[in-house]
């Protein structure tokens, strides 16, 4: 048997021609990368801010220049504000949010599992989650303060409550999406209900649980700042609130910048964690 290598000669025309992309004149216009556009936007905003501050369009008390804010950020780092350095304020806030996250995961994952696997569980928990989900955390903060007083407990409770719905809902969604074959395979190998839950259902739902956790971190972080604005003696929210009361606008702006920066860092860390713990979810 001989192999036909010259297809064009064999068929009398180039059979690959029609399957190929139609040849277009190559686009030589250079495209500006989006990141560059974003960078230029930030720089422009800073310049407008600097110009506005230099021209003293409004009083420096209300709008300090970027340089003043930078200096106050440096002072926050080295000296601190209201008895605490920036690191201590950040640490106080982070401890609250991470502590609340722990509580929310410990309660939320089993709750989501119950909703996703059992009709009774769904019947009991669904209305609670659906009641809690659309509520702004600040709406129940006063009640929590009445119950738990102004201490760490009330803040952690508020943050945990704000985190719960997204963890519960994403866990339930992940549990419901577990492949039937995956469960049947385990059952065929003699797995008990507990083993199926542990080795298949929860493992399979992990990417979804982690996504829910990442979203929860975002909502928790905003709830935290709100809670600290109202009732705290340390923390980023407290810091900008008390600075505002003394009209120390540069500290307020520096504090807002730090809050935004940490929110971004938390998001990045959570994404890295997802990639590390559940690489298969992003690999397909």
């Amino acid at each position, binding site marked *: 048997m001989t192999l036909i290598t010259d297809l064009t000669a064999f068929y009398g025309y180039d059979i690959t021609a029609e399957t190929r992309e139609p040849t277009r004149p190559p686009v030589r216009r250079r495209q500006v990368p989006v990141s560059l556009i974003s960078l230029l936007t930030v720089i422009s905003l800073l310049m407008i801010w600097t110009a506005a501050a230099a021209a003293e369009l409004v009083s420096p008390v209300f709008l300090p220049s970027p340089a003043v804010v930078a200096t106050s950020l440096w002072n926050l780092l080295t000296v601190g504000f209201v008895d605490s350095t920036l690191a201590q304020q950040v640490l106080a806030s982070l401890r609250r949010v991470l502590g609340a996250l722990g509580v929310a995961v410990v309660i939320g994952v089993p709750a989501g599992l119950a909703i996703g696997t059992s009709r009774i569980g769904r019947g009991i928990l669904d209305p609670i989650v659906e009641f809690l989900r659309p509520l702004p955390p600040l709406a129940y903060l006063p009640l929590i303060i009445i119950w738990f007083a102004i201490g760490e407990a009330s803040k952690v409770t508020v943050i945990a409550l704000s985190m719960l719905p997204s963890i519960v809902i994403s866990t339930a969604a992940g549990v419901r999406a577990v492949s039937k074959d*995956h469960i*049947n395979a385990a059952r*065929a190998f003699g*797995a008990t209900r507990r083993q199926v839950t542990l*080795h298949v259902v929860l*493992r399979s739902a992990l990417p979804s649980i982690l996504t829910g956790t990442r979203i929860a971190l975002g909502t928790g972080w905003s709830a935290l700042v709100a809670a600290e604005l109202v009732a705290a003696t340390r923390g980023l929210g407290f810091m900008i609130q008390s600075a505002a009361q003394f009209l120390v606008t540069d500290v307020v702006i520096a504090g807002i910048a730090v809050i935004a920066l940490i929110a971004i860092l938390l998001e990045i860390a959570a994404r890295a964690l997802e990639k590390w713990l559940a690489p*298969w979810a992003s690999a397909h």
Partner: protein
Amino acid sequence: MSQLSFNEVSLIYPARGRHCAAQLVLDRINLSVSTGEFVVVIGRSGSGKTSLLNLAAGFQEPSEGKVTLDGKIIEGPGTERAVVFQDDALYPWLDARDNVAFPLKIKGMGERDRRARGDELLELVGLPEAGQRRIWELSGGMRQRVGIARALAAEPRFLLLDEPLGALDALTRSRLQIFLLDVWRKSRSGALLITHSIDEALLLATRIVVLSPNPGRLAADIPSSFAADILAGAPAVEVRASPAFKRMHDGLTGLIQAVSPEEELAA
């Protein structure tokens, strides 16, 4: 010797609401598979092939009749019957070796023994290097090999194969057919394979069972000897080209068309 039997087995999906009437899926099936047999069930979609396998696996219960293993009624899945799924059903959070050793983990075997056995089984299915590989990095054919190794880990008496080669390209498929035959002989188990390929049925089966669709009824139960030829060393290409094979192929095609007239049939 072990025997998996269907005695007058019917399966009815009950009516659901106004628009979905009760549906008879399998109608009084009588069938048995013994260890050492390779029974291939063939039929069009709607003939209840997969339901038949699910009943054997214990994922479902019959509406009427009995499914028994050595005379005992099957109540749910069990380690003496291992299942290989069409879309492999491997666990992406485990590497290839841990997938293969998963049944041993369920059994409570220690980690070191588990690993050793996992490596052994991967070698048996021709993937000695794949132990640490992630499932999603493997090709479809490799994944099915891992799936088969996992089924073997439980040391089952019966292999229940639900179109395990259905999603593979033709070349990989014909290679894995021979591989499957070899695995079946070495494991001395009984095999129940679901397929819609007549060619595959003829190559692998010691017995071919034809189901007619809507509802699934046993239309034929025919012995086949081509698998024995292949196990005796005859190349699959020659077996396929033999007049006897072609005659059987035509006969089966005619039979299946006669019992299920609509639709074109897969070769």
